C-alpha cells in the first residue's frame, strides 16, 4: 500500500514507530496534489515549503526523543474559511482575496499544538454559501469520482482532496450540511459536531448560530482522532460548551450494544432518489445484522426545516457580512474611477438642472460602500444578504425571523422527543448523489432543497455525520447520515465504526486517483 492509501490512524502508527518520516509523508501527499489537483482543483493554496520545513522539524524532534503531538507530522487540509495567521484566508471571495488574518483560529492553534502539518487551504462556496463549491470566486472544484460533477459544498475542496488521496485529514465547516453533503458526494466521512463542541473563534462567520467546524476523514477512526484534537472549550468563544471531551479515538472501536436506530418517516418521501433510498435501506439492514433495532419515528416539523433554516441563516449572514464594506480591510472598489464617475454624474445632472436626482446622488462614502459590495460579492452571497436584510426589516421581523426562531425550537423539541425513543437517527444525507457541474446554478431553490436532510441538525444544534454507504449506477458515492443527541459524538463515531467493520464502502477510491 502506498502512503496516500493509508488512513491517518495507520500513518501515525508508522510515524511513531519510525517506519515513515513526516517528510516522506508530506512529500508523498504533495506529489499527489501535484499530480491530481490540476484536475480536481480542491486547493486554493498549497503551502509546500512551509509544510516540508514543518515536517523536518517534527522529524528532528522525534529523532531527538522529544514527544510530539497527537497528529505529529501528519498533513491536514484546512477549508479557506478558517483563519490562519500570516496566510491568506479568502472564503473563496473576491472580497477577501487579499486578506491575511493576524491570528490563528482556535482550531488552527489546536492543530499546531498537536503538531499537525497544515498543507494548504481548500476551496469552498463563497463564504460557505452553497452546496456545490461552484460559487467560489477562485476556482471550480470537480468531484474526483467524475470530474464533470460537483464535489458538493460548501466544503467541496475539503472533501474532494480527501477523496483524491491528496491528504489523510481535512477540516471543513458545516452550517446546513456543508461537511456532510460534500463528504457523501465524494465518498468520504464527515462529522458536524454539536454546536459549541468545537470553537468557532477564527471561523469566518456565515450564520453564527448554525456554523460549526468539523473533521473529514477516510473512516470513523480517523474522524475520532481529528475530532479529539479539534474539540474542547474555548473561552474566546462565548457559545463554546464548557464540558470535557471524551477520548474519541479510544472509544471509537467499542461497538454499541442494543443500538436503536430511528428512521424518519418524513425522510423517505418525495424527492428522494431511489438508488439513494435503496443504499440507505441496505445500510439499515447491515445495522440490523449487527444486532441493532430499527424503529420508525417522526420529526413532524422537519418539513419546515428548509424555510426556517434559510431565514435564520440569511438573517445572520446579512449581519455577519456587513463588515465587508471596503473601509478597514479586504476588497475596495477603484476609488479614483469611482470618484470620477460620481463627478461625471454630478456634472450631467447639474447641466440638466435635475435637482431631485442630484439630491439623491450617493455621497462618496455611500458610493464606495455600494460599489465595493456589488463588485466584491458573488451572486449567491448577495442573494442571501438581500433575503436576510429583508427578513430583518421593520415590519417583517416578526413574520419571518421571530417565527423562524419559534419553529427552530419546535424542531429541537422533535429531536428531544425522538432521542427519548432511539439512540441515533439514520437516513440519507442528500436526496441525490453528486450532480453535474452547472446543473443547478440557475435554480437556487432546487439547490436549497438539497439541504433537506441536513439543516435540521444545525437548527437543533445536535451532532451528525456522513459515512459512505454505496455507489449508484453511475459509480457515484452515496452517504448515510447518522444524527445523535447533543454532545454525543462518541455514540455517532462508534456506530459509524461498527458499520465500517463489516462494510468496505469507505475504502473505495475514485478511478484515476
Amino acid at each position, binding site marked *: 500500500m502506498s502512503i496516500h492509501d493509508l488512513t491517518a490512524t495507520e500513518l501515525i502508527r508508522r510515524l511513531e514507530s519510525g517506519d515513515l518520516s513526516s517528510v516522506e509523508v508530506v512529500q508523498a501527499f504533495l506529489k499527489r496534489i501535484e499530480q491530481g489537483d490540476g484536475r480536481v482543483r480542491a486547493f486554493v493554496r498549497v503551502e509546500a515549503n512551509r509544510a516540508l520545513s514543518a515536517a523536518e522539524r517534527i522529524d528532528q524532534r522525534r529523532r531527538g526523543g522529544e514527544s510530539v503531538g497527537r497528529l505529529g507530522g501528519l498533513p491536514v487540509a484546512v477549508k479557506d474559511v*478558517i*483563519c490562519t495567521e500570516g496566510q491568506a*484566508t479568502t*472564503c473563496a471571495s473576491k472580497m*477577501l482575496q487579499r*486578506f491575511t*488574518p*493576524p*491570528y490563528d*483560529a482556535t482550531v488552527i492553534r489546536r492543530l499546531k499544538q498537536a503538531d499537525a502539518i497544515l498543507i494548504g487551504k481548500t476551496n469552498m462556496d463563497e463564504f460557505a454559501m452553497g452546496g456545490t463549491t461552484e460559487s467560489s470566486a477562485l476556482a471550480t472544484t470537480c468531484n474526483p469520482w467524475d470530474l464533470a460533477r460537483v464535489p458538493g459544498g460548501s466544503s467541496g475542496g475539503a472533501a474532494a482532496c480527501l477523496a483524491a488521496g491528496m491528504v489523510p485529514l481535512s477540516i471543513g465547516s458545516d452550517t446546513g450540511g456543508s461537511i456532510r453533503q460534500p463528504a457523501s458526494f465524494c465518498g468520504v466521512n464527515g462529522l458536524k459536531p454539536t454546536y459549541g463542541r468545537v470553537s*468557532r*473563534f*477564527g*471561523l*469566518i*462567520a456565515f*450564520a*453564527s*448560530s448554525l456554523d460549526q467546524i468539523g473533521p473529514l476523514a477516510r473512516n470513523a477512526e480517523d474522524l475520532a482522532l481529528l475530532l479529539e484534537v479539534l474539540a474542547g472549550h474555548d*473561552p*474566546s*468563544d*462565548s*457559545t463554546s460548551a464548557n464540558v470535557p471531551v471524551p477520548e474519541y479515538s479510544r472509544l471509537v472501536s467499542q461497538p454499541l450494544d442494543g443500538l436503536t436506530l430511528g428512521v424518519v418517516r418524513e425522510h423517505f418521501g418525495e424527492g428522494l432518489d431511489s438508488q439513494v433510498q435503496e443504499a440507505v435501506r441496505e445500510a439499515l439492514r447491515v445495522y440490523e445484522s449487527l444486532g441493532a433495532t430499527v424503529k420508525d419515528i417522526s420529526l413532524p416539523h422537519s418539513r419546515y426545516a428548509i424555510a426556517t433554516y434559510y431565514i435564520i441563516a440569511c*438573517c*445572520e449572514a*446579512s*449581519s455577519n*457580512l*456587513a*463588515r*465587508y*464594506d471596503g*473601509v*478597514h*480591510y479586504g476588497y475596495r472598489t477603484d476609488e479614483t474611477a469611482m470618484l470620477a464617475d460620481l463627478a461625471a454624474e454630478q456634472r450631467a445632472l447639474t447641466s440638466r438642472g435635475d435637482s431631485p436626482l442630484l439630491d*439623491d446622488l450617493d455621497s*462618496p*462614502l455611500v458610493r464606495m*460602500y455600494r460599489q465595493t459590495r456589488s463588485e466584491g460579492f458573488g451572486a449567491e452571497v448577495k442573494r442571501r444578504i438581500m433575503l436576510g*436584510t429583508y427578513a*430583518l*426589516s*421593520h415590519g417583517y*421581523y416578526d413574520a419571518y*425571523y421571530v417565527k423562524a426562531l419559534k419553529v427552530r425550537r419546535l424542531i429541537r423539541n422533535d429531536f428531544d422527543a425522538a432521542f427519548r425513543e432511539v439512540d441515533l437517527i439514520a437516513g440519507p444525507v442528500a436526496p441525490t448523489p453528486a450532480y453535474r457541474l452547472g446543473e443547478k446554478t440557475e435554480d437556487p431553490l432546487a439547490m436549497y432543497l438539497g439541504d433537506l436532510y441536513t439543516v435540521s441538525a444545525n437548527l437543533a444544534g445536535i451532532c451528525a455525520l456522513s459515512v459512505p454507504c454505496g455507489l449508484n449506477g453511475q459509480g457515484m458515492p452515496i452517504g448515510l447520515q447518522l444524527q445523535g443527541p447533543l454532545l454525543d459524538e462518541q455514540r455517532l463515531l462508534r456506530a459509524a465504526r461498527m458499520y465500517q467493520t463489516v462494510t468496505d464502502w469507505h475504502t473505495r477510491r475514485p478511478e484515476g486517483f
Partner: protein
Amino acid sequence: MSDPSYEIVIGLEVHVQLQTATKLFCRCSTRFGAPPNTQTCPVCIGLPGSLPVMNRQAFELALKTAVALNCEIPAFTKWDRKQYYYPDLPKGYQISQFDLPMSQHGYLEISDAKGAFAPKRVGILRAHLEEDAGKSMHDELAGKADSRIDLNRTGTPLLEIVSQPDMRSPEEARAYLTELKLLLTYLGVSDCNMQEGSLRVDANINLHVATPQGTVATPIVEVKNMNSFRAVERAMAFEATRQFDVWNDTRISLGAPGGHKTTRGWDEQAQVTRPQRQKEESSDYRYFPDPDLAPVIVTDQQLDAVRASLGELPAALRDRLQTERGIDAYDADVIVNQGRAFVDYFSELADIGGDAKRASNWMQQDVLRVLNERDLTIELFPISPASLAELLKTVQRGELDTSRARDVFNVMAESGDSAAQAMQRLGIQAVHRDELRDLCRELLDANPNVVADVQSGKEKAIGALIGQAKRRNPNANPNQVRQLCLELIRQQGSAQE
C-alpha cells in the same frame, strides 16, 4: 420658564463610559489619549472570524448603577445587534441591547437647595449596556475630503441611561445631570469626564402649549453636541424659546404634517441650535439578538451582593448629615455634592472638632476656596482633619478670632504645618490677661470720649479701641479686649458713684 402659556418637556439620554480596565467584548485597554489605533485587536476592529466575550466587570458596574437608579433588574437580559453602516463602526453593527435591556423603570430624585424648583422624581425609562463606536476625524484640508478613523474607543463599555420626559425646565435638566453625575461618581463607575467623552448627553425637548382648544404638544427636537451641563441648560432654554416662536409662526404640532422629530446641534460659539442633516432614509436598525453572545442571567444573590456594595448614596447622605450633624439642607447639599471624600473629611473634622456647624462653615468657605484656587481634590488637601480640628478648637475656646484663624489656616494650607506650628510661625501667642488689662487701661485713658460714649449706652464705640489694640499687639484677642474694656469702664463708673 418665563412664559406661563407653555410647559417645557425634556427627556435626557446620557451615555456614560464605564470605568473598566478593558473593553466590553475584548481585552484591549480603555485608556484615553493613546496614539490612534494602538488599543485594538481582531475583536474590536471586527476582523473576520473574531468573536466577542463579555467583560463581567462592565456588567457589574452597569448593575451597580442600575440598582442605584432604583431600576428593576430582569433575571434575563440579552445582546442585540444594531445595524448601520459607518466607517467608525467596523462590524457594520453595534452590540447593544434592544427589547430586553438589563434594567428599566427606575428613578432619580432631584432637588434644588435654593428652591429654584420643587424636589421631584425623574423617571428612568431604561439603562442598557452597549459598545462605543470609534472616532472619525474629518480632514478636509486642501479639498481632500479624507477621513481618519481611530478605533481605540471602539468597544469601550457604555451605559445608556434614558430618562422619562419628566423635566420641566432647563434648570431641572441641569440638576438631573448634576445629580446623575454625582451618583455615578459616588458609585465609582465612571469618571464622567465630558471633555474626554466619557459622559455624553443628548436631549429631547418639546413644549406643551396651552391653547383655547386644550394643551398641544410641539414637534420633538433632539439636541446634540452639548459639551457641558451648562451648555445643556442653555441649549434647552434656547430651544424652548425657539420652539415657541416656531409654534406661533406655524402652529405645527407633534405628529402633524411637518411635525416629525428633528435633530439639531448646539453651537456653543453662537449659543444657538442649528438643524442637523437628516438621514435620507428613515433609519431601520434591523435589531436582532446577537448569536455570538449568550444571554446574561442575573441572580438574586448577585443583586444582593451589588446592593451591599453600593455604600451610602448622595440622597441618603444628605439626610443623615442633617439629622445626625444638625446642619441645614443647603449645607448638607454643598458638602455631599463635593463627593464622598469631602464628606468623609467633614465627618472626621466634625467628630474631632466637636462642632459640626463650624466644621461645615470652614469646609464650605475656606477649604473649598483653597481647593478651587489650587485645583486640588480633597484627597490632596495638605491639612489633615485632625490639624484643622485643632485650629477650630482654638477659635472655639476664644483664643483666636476668625480673621486671625484664617491667617493661620492659610499658612497651614501653604506649609502643611500643624495649627500650633503655624501660629508660632505667625508669632501668635496667647497674651497674658494682666498684660492685656494694662493695654486696655492705657487705651481707655487715651480715649476718654470712647469711655463717655460707652457710659452713655453706645457700647459699639468700643470697636475703635479694638483696632488700636490689635495695632499695638497683633496677638490681642478682640473679644477679650472688648470684654476687658467694658469691664474696666464699668469699674470706673461704679468707682465714681
